């Protein structure tokens, strides 16, 4: 099947909608989702660009497998330029929006301009229109979803922003339906800057499948693997991502108090097991997913989704708070306000360390949970100290003349894995195209801690350049197919290649997919270079390279970043961190 892709070009300034066709050959070079998003953002990636002035579009793209009945495969991507990092960014989510869009006959939306008043973008099969949203402006995420659901019913796909997005918090997220977050990088602020409160999509058609019989065989095989793998069949459904608390603690990489130390011992009060036992109401997850890694939790009268491992850590132990009953409502509140939990927590942790060192006064202190809820609110509404915190940890710390205490890369706050015990993860943070991110870095934790697909030693340096590159490439493939990273734990590239062939007819083998992932990563790198984000920013906070860990399984370790980078650049053929002419040509990015 050589289906061309249907794009909706929506200009919020004029309220006009145009339809465009992207040739199948063009789409296939980037797969869809994140890859296609990067290709379409390319013309806007120029030095000095301000993603919040309306000049940069939001590209919402489904993947070629979206809505085709693939396990954990109903995701969609949103690409733009990050107001937090100034890099190209993508973020993705499960939920019905991507699936509904394809069922409505379109594969992507390019949303540009700024609406004069708040609006909701509505796509109802063939019909696309903007509806006034003055009454929704100021509403929290669940209030917005509730009101939209009353009007459009439970089956409509919906993505919305909360107050953080409206107020330009640089790490505002976009929330999809029951609290699935498009978190990192601040896409919510870009949406808010366009006065776009929500997107509602209703699609009643079907997505064509090239070879249904073949797809059935491939899915049977794939499901056997998903049902056999202990992570996808047991750990994630039972404990969700907080299963990682104990595992990372044992590995000596669970950070405490803005990465000043790591947890040791076995008796933490904030493990995934404790969360499951005491606070979990039910499991939950994205539509069409067998794993259902999410959980609904309740504590102190607050009921909602999460916290994920990252949120639990960022709003808990990284702030010196160990009581799950306090952590859970904070995570729920971030979702309600439409705000990335990792960046919010990382910024608070930085403020706490600056206060601890008498560098900058703050209303928040390590271990004091009492003020957290109010400060989160202040960030979302940009009040008082929250206004500066809404800029992120790097700007806040830089203003105080103490940038080294911001645990970030390229301005994005780091997630909860100390890289001193996971050297590949350190390299991954440093080289992630959207900044200090576990997922876009390649999630080396899978290899270094979980042993997926095979264990590589966490403190080993030699060889990590290739591991990071390959993991990043495969990650870019997953994000471009718009399938969940967790499913890739159990299913190697060959499985996705066969699914892709069955659904679209595209003949791309497993290694062809990896090569396409390399094309996407390299394109993103080139776009970052064009915006002035170069090899100088492939750095970690000095804490990780200069201060050895003093406790736990990785005592004495620092990150050997220069050695790691040298091997990584050599592996990628990016001398000095810049893709070589030869590599650019080989990947067909010179056209």
């Amino acid at each position, binding site marked *: 099947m050589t289906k061309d892709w249907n794009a909706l070009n929506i200009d919020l300034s004029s309220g006009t909608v145009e339809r465009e066709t992207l040739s199948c050959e063009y789409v296939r070079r980037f797969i869809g989702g994140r890859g296609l998003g990067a290709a379409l953002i390319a013309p806007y990636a120029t030095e000095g660009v301000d993603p919040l002035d309306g000049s940069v579009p939001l590209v919402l793209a489904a993947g070629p497998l979206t809505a085709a009945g693939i396990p954990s495969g109903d995701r969609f991507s949103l690409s733009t330029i990050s107001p937090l990092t100034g890099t190209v960014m993508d973020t993705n989510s499960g939920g019905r929006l991507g699936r509904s869009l394809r069922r409505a006959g379109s594969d992507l939306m390019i949303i540009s301009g700024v609406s004069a008043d708040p609006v909701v973008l509505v796509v109802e099969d063939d019909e696309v229109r903007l509806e006034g949203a003055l009454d929704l402006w100021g509403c929290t995420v669940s209030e917005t979803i509730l009101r939209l659901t009353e009007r459009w019913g439970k089956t409509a796909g919906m993505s919305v922003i909360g107050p953080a997005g409206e107020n330009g918090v640089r790490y505002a997220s976009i929330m999809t339906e029951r609290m699935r977050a498009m978190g990192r990088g601040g896409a919510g602020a870009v949406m808010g800057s366009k006065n776009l409160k929500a997107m509602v999509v209703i699609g009643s058609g079907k997505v064509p499948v090239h070879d249904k019989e073949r797809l059935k065989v*491939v899915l049977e095989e794939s499901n056997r693997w998903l049902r056999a793998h202990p992570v996808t069949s047991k750990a994630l459904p039972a404990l969700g991502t907080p299963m990682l608390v104990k595992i990372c603690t044992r590995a000596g990489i669970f950070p405490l108090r803005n990465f000043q130390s790591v947890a040791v011992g076995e008796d933490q009060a904030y493990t995934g097991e404790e969360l499951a036992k005491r606070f979990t109401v039910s499991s939950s997850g994205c539509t069409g997913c067998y794993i259902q890694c999410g959980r609904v939790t309740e504590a102190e009268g607050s009921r909602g989704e999460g916290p994920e491992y990252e949120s639990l850590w960022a709003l808990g132990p990284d702030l010196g708070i160990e009581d799950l009953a306090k952590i859970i409502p904070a995570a729920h509140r971030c979702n309600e306000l439409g705000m990335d939990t990792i960046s919010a927590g990382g910024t608070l942790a930085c403020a706490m360390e600056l206060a601890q060192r008498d560098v900058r006064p703050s209303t928040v202190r390590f271990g004091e949970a009492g003020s957290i809820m109010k400060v989160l609110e202040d960030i979302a509404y940009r009040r008082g100290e929250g206004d500066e915190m809404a800029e992120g940890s790097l700007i806040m710390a830089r203003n105080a003349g103490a940038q080294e205490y911001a645990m970030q890369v390229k301005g994005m706050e780091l997630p909860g894995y100390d890289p001193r015990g996971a050297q590949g993860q350190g390299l991954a943070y440093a080289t992630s195209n959207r900044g200090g991110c576990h997922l876009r870095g390649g999630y080396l934790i899978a290899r270094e801690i979980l042993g997926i697909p*095979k264990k590589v030693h966490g403190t080993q340096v*030699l060889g990590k350049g290739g*591991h990071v590159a390959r993991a990043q490439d495969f990650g870019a493939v997953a994000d471009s197919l718009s399938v969940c990273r967790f499913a890739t734990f159990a299913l190697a590239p060959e499985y996705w290649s066969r699914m892709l062939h069955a659904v679209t007819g595209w003949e791309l083998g497993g290694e062809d997919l990896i*090569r396409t992932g390399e094309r996407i990563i390299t394109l993103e790198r080139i776009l970052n270079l064009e915006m002035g984000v170069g090899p100088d920013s492939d750095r970690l906070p000095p804490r990780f390279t200069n201060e050895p860990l003093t406790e736990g399984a990785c005592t004495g370790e620092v990150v*050997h970043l220069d050695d790691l980078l040298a*091997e990584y650049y050599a*592996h990628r053929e990016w001398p000095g961190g810049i893709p070589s002419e030869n590599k650019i040509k080989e990947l067909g990015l010179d056209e």
Partner: protein
Amino acid sequence: MNKEGESFKRLIEEFSRVGRVLFTGGLNNSHSGNLSVRLGDRVVITRRGAMLGELSADDLVDVGLIEDDSGIALASTEVKVHRAVFAATSHLAIVHTHPRTATALSMGRDFLVPVDDEGRYYFKRIPVLAVRASIGSDDLERELPAMLKDYPIVMVRGHGAFAVGGNLEEGLQITHALEWSCDILLRCLALGMTEEDLMDDRTHGEW
């Protein structure tokens, strides 16, 4: 390559552990087979004539991924095949062995298709590559990389197996799984079961 330091120590540990298991598991004889990993634009490979069961730091040599340098004089005879595979794929490790049962079965087949469940889990089928010269040859250098783009392990008829992966242990695992599956297949045939019986529900062979 700096052979001092913790990181190199871990690398040689990995090589010797995998080499030892391959030898004791009967997948190589005393001086056959070779192992390599890619490190950036370098390839670390076992020395020519090394005993995989007893590897030490002196048995590892590094050569450029593309360019020749003095390491090439010491490297395994198969070095150019290893380099070609690394250059054409994203794999990070290669395990080359001489498994007896798989080699025997490769003589008369174009594909080896496991009949045991574990083998079927790992591979749908394993292609057999027939080339005129199979040791350190231009034929292998030309043909093998393309096949290892689609399959994690390839049998070279009359010679042995080339397995790829993210690290040496992955290559070791699938090599063992292949030989095990071939051994089971051989036993089934020896017990009088026909290929047809065994092939009954194997739609996965076409997968």
